[in-house]
């Protein structure tokens, strides 16, 4: 075999090996969680560790595009996605608005699929201008994949979607009595048993939305979350809202939503909101497709 052929073969083999190494290197990053089908027939994973929520947890793709998943702003059968309504009359699972709540709802113009949807460039959704989502909006919409870190005094929830994070104090402190409003509120949590962690959050900015359907809340909102670790690899997540200013009774926004554990080396992709990227998108897409442009 000539020297030239040998050199060529060695070069091809080296290139192949290098490509394989680079692929293996790249596979460590920007991981994509399994789809729903991967959890069909999911086998029991055994007992959960006690008083421990540590890990990377996934809800299986995005959620809540039509509002809180227990109360989507849709008519029966999922109809009504195209908007055009002022209120939510006729939706499959209506909410108990007070008169003030209904007035506040009408001021919010959501862009997600639902009975009150508007063209995306007309929305006043804080998310549409990259304002902080705040809590609980960060959990009722695009929950996706979170990273839960636990210290002796805190449970910290990191969410790459919009760069959200929350700190839940577990040192026994009480919620503040008259807090300065925060986008993410003030959270305290406790274990009610070895596998159930309950969180109370108050003190949230009234200007944030509850969900992607533009449901409003007042500064009196109290959010109760329950993280029930039912197995080593599964948490059931429940969220309840109590806001007597906007709603005549408490309501469940998320009910035992499974959070599936992902491997500890799972790299969650970044998905941040950039005002300049949004402005460019509005310029190139959202404004040109506006159905009723304002007259000049």
């Amino acid at each position, binding site marked *: 075999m000539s020297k030239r052929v040998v050199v060529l073969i060695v070069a091809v083999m080296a290139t192949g090996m290098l490509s394989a190494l680079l692929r293996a290197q790249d596979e460590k990053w920007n991981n994509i969680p399994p789809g729903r089908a991967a959890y069909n027939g999911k086998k029991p994973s055994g007992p959960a560790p006690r008083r421990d929520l540590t890990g990377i947890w996934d809800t299986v793709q995005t959620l809540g595009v039509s509002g809180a998943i227990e109360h989507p702003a849709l008519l029966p059968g999922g109809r009504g996605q195209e908007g055009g309504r002022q209120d939510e009359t006729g939706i499959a699972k209506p909410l108990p608005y007070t008169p003030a709540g209904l007035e506040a709802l009408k001021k919010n113009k959501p862009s997600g699929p639902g009975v009150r949807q508007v063209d995306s460039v007309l929305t006043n959704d804080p998310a549409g201008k990259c304002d902080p989502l705040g809590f609980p909006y960060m959990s009722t919409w695009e929950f996706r994949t979170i990273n839960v870190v636990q210290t002796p005094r805190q449970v910290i929830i990191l969410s790459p979607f919009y760069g959200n994070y929350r700190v839940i104090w577990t040192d026994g402190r009480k919620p503040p009595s008259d807090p300065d409003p925060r986008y993410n509120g003030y959270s305290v949590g406790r274990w009610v048993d070895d596998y159930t962690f309950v969180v109370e959050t108050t003190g949230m900015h009234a200007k944030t939305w509850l969900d992607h359907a533009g449901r409003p809340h007042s500064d009196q909102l109290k959010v109760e979350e329950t993280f029930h670790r039912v197995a080593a690899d599964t948490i059931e997540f429940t969220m309840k809202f109590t806001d007597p200013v906007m709603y005549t009774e408490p309501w469940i926004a998320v009910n035992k939503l499974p959070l599936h554990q992902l491997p500890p080396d799972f790299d969650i992709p970044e998905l941040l909101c950039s005002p300049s990227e949004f402005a460019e998108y509005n310029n190139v897409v959202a404004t040109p*497709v506006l*159905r009723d442009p304002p007259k000049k």
Partner: protein
Amino acid sequence: MARKLGIVALTVGWLAFPVPLFAHHGAASFESGKTVTVKGTVTEYVWSNPHVLVKVDAKDDSGNIAHWVCEAWNPVTQTGRGWTKNTFKAGDEVSLDINPAKNGQPVGEIRGRIVINGTEFKQLPQ
């Protein structure tokens, strides 16, 4: 209208196309139950939030060019469907099935078959 928009092959299919769960905006601006096929040359591929964009110059039978903007979801969601920042490049010849804008502008949501330089691009299931 088709000639004006430079759609070489106009395929209108009245599909019961459900809006994917991860739509952060829905059917207000786009015809979610209608599909047209845009064929042309990629001029720009924008791998960015809030939507990945594929810009296509499509020529009609008269040789007039329409500048289409075809949007997909955000990069993270698209990665889950098998896309990468290199899936398209300027100069690629493509055929994209889209839901068009209701107001007739050359803008659409990529919602169906994708062909790049003669080869169908098979997306991963949602």
